[in-house]
């Protein structure tokens, strides 16, 4: 991928009150690419899932740090990295299966499925005991725009 035209980074505590903050902040930044309402909703939802995973799974009994970096590219692509230094995922392949959850009865087990289907590409890198990085890439077609 080419050099990003813009980039931002945030860091916050793994408290559930920050789920709304994270998705709203990321979507506000991505708004620079003039996305449609549907594209913004897709991004908000994918980010919400990634951050919720950090809170519920990476730091189940502690409060840790969550790092989000967003890159915007001039071809309309956006790359979002959500990183934690929590407990990691033993079996990433299993975790990505729809409806699979270790999160108890009121978790749907759809987090990764939602991220995957609401973006164009999802990469998950995880090391047990070290943490997890989820990378989401989405192409923003956006509204029809004039020359930039």
């Amino acid at each position, binding site marked *: 991928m080419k050099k990003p035209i813009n980039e931002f980074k945030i860091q916050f505590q793994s408290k559930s009150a920050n*789920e709304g903050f994270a*998705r709203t902040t990321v979507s506000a930044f991505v708004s620079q690419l003039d996305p449609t*309402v549907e594209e913004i909703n897709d991004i*908000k939802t994918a980010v919400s899932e990634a951050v*919720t995973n950090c809170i519920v799974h990476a730091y189940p009994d502690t409060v840790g740090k969550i790092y989000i970096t967003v890159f915007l590219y001039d071809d309309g692509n956006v790359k979002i990295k959500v990183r934690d230094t929590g407990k990691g995922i033993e079996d990433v392949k299993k975790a990505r299966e729809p409806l699979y959850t270790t999160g108890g009865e*009121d978790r*749907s087990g759809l987090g990764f499925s939602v991220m995957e*289907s609401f973006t164009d590409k999802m990469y998950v890198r995880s090391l047990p005991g070290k943490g997890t990085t989820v990378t989401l890439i989405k192409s923003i077609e956006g509204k029809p725009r004039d020359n930039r």
Partner: protein
Amino acid sequence: MPAKVVCDGEYVTAYLSGEIDHHNAGAVRAIIDTYIMKAKPKKLTIDFGSVSFMDSSGVGLVMGRFKNISDYGGKMEITGLSPHAYKVMTMSGIEKIAVIHRKREEKKNEKAD
């Protein structure tokens, strides 16, 4: 208030509003479960008409309540889903076991918020 519940004999309707995520779902769940235990409704309707955002926590909320009411043979209906919430909800396949309705008139040109 994350959920307003109207109880009409054996029919209970929960009107949700605002953003349904992992942070907010717990309070909504507690309210609805109180009514399930108290009224044992024949039919539980969960209305998403005033929900501005929903992630898979909304799906977990519905699946969990479905389990609770089907334990005694109750039925469930989901109404007022925006196109986006519908997309999230149907990823679970819940439409095969519960009746779900989208928003009646979703004006195409209107912004979601």
